[in-house]
């Protein structure tokens, strides 16, 4: 069985699986290309190493976008973590990754030895990945690049649930995801989405929290139109 060698970017926005040849470098002269997640160079070809959709960011950046239950930490990702242990210098946080993440006690706005935050085990934290290395445990921070707390920190009350990494990316996509847009027109609620596949929802009434959570969970396998009609039917039952 011959390996198919498509012309450059013929498979863009199509599904690829491990072993698929996505680019033939012999046909691409004097071009620099950047490879993202899910791709590797094998001699004169670029092959997929994971299943998903091949994406191209113009002019020359290729990667495979896939939806998984596990999260591989990446720098500058915003994540929702659960504190699992406290140490003198840092908190150990579960971010659904291969290893637990470190959150230094000083990685908060105005963090000094005198005002160390006290988080109990089980506390939900919205943080930013500062260091991500396959050999080391990831490091988190509750400050943005300028040193301000921004939206990061402890999330109180509300309800947290797990989703796939694909759904969390969809919720954070621009323009606004249809399900959130449709819900936002009728209900008031707060939402925090982590790229690690965790979503936190808070609303004035528990019924609103349940509706928003269910709508988000159901939206994963629906199109934009399907999401809007699903939200409408949920809100009809609520009223």
């Amino acid at each position, binding site marked *: 069985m011959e390996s198919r060698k498509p012309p450059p970017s013929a498979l863009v926005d199509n599904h690829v699986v*491990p*072993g698929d040849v996505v680019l033939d470098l012999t046909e691409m002269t004097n071009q620099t290309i950047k490879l993202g997640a899910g791709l590797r160079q094998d001699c004169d070809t670029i092959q997929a190493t994971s299943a*998903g959709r091949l994406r191209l960011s113009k002019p020359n950046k290729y990667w495979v976008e*896939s939806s998984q239950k*596990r999260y591989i930490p990446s720098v500058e990702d915003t994540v929702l973590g659960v504190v699992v242990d406290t140490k003198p210098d840092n908190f150990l946080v579960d971010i659904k990754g291969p290893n637990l993440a470190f959150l230094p006690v000083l990685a908060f706005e105005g963090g000094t030895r005198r005002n160390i935050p006290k988080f109990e085990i089980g506390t939900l934290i919205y943080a930013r990945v500062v260091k991500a290395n396959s*050999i080391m445990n990831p490091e988190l921070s509750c400050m943005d690049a300028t040193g301000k707390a921004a939206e990061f920190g402890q999330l109180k009350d509300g309800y947290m649930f797990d989703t796939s990494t*694909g759904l969390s990316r969809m919720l954070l996509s621009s323009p606004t995801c249809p399900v959130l847009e449709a819900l936002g027109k009728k209900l008031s609620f707060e939402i925090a989405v982590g790229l690690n596949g965790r979503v936190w929802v808070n609303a004035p009434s528990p019924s609103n929290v349940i509706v928003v959570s269910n709508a988000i969970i159901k939206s994963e396998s629906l199109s934009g139109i399907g999401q809007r009609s699903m939200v409408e039917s949920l809100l009809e039952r609520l009223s």
Partner: protein
Amino acid sequence: MSAAATAGTYSPASAAGEKRRERKEELRRHLAEDADWPRADGRSFHDCRPAFMQTGPTTAASGSAYAEFGKTKVIVSVFGPRESKKAMLYSDTGRLNCNVSYTTFATPIRGQGTDNKEYSAMLHKALEGAVMLHTFPKTTVDVFALVLESGGSDLPIIISCASLALADAGIMMYDLVTSVSVSCFGKNIIIDPTSDEEAWQDGSLMVAYMPARKEITQLTLTGEWSDGKITNAVELCMDACSKLCDILRERLKDASSLAE
């Protein structure tokens, strides 16, 4: 009353045993003739059983797959990558932990599953060449295979199903691994044997193959084979593996389009 009840008791095991004995006698007669003979399920020698595969049956796992080839039914769950136990030494490449087990009702005689340790080791050998272990250092990926019903050619189906589950879990792989086995009966080579055929084979050959890379990750040979026959059998297996890989690709594409 009790005597009458005992007399009227129906024993499915003995009835099934008689049917099996009849089939084996028929097979023995055909083998003595050494000519072309019809297989019990109506397939020709070079026909595989109808295959059904599906991803995501186990919601708790990182990735999972279910495979059904004729009467053989297998479910594989993949967990991880997750942190290796503290007792394990540091490793700059990941670990692949494979475990094969049988349900008590998988075989006709209750609780008589094949040697699980041997199958676990063979599954590990078949998959480790395809998984990019260096992409998850200090961590372990666990592959748990459970045979729900054993109908022959169990290990090749476990390998193919495990490969699908690993891809579903998003584990980096060089290529998908598919596996097929053949049995030798006198002059004849039959592909994808059932458990009855495996019981009377002169020899067996199993190939685990990466079709896109054209690499064999495992080749297991038992019994009496001639050089020419081995070459034919390996080519037959590789061709079947390539076709099976197309099914795996379709399943993965269906799964990722459903997720969107």
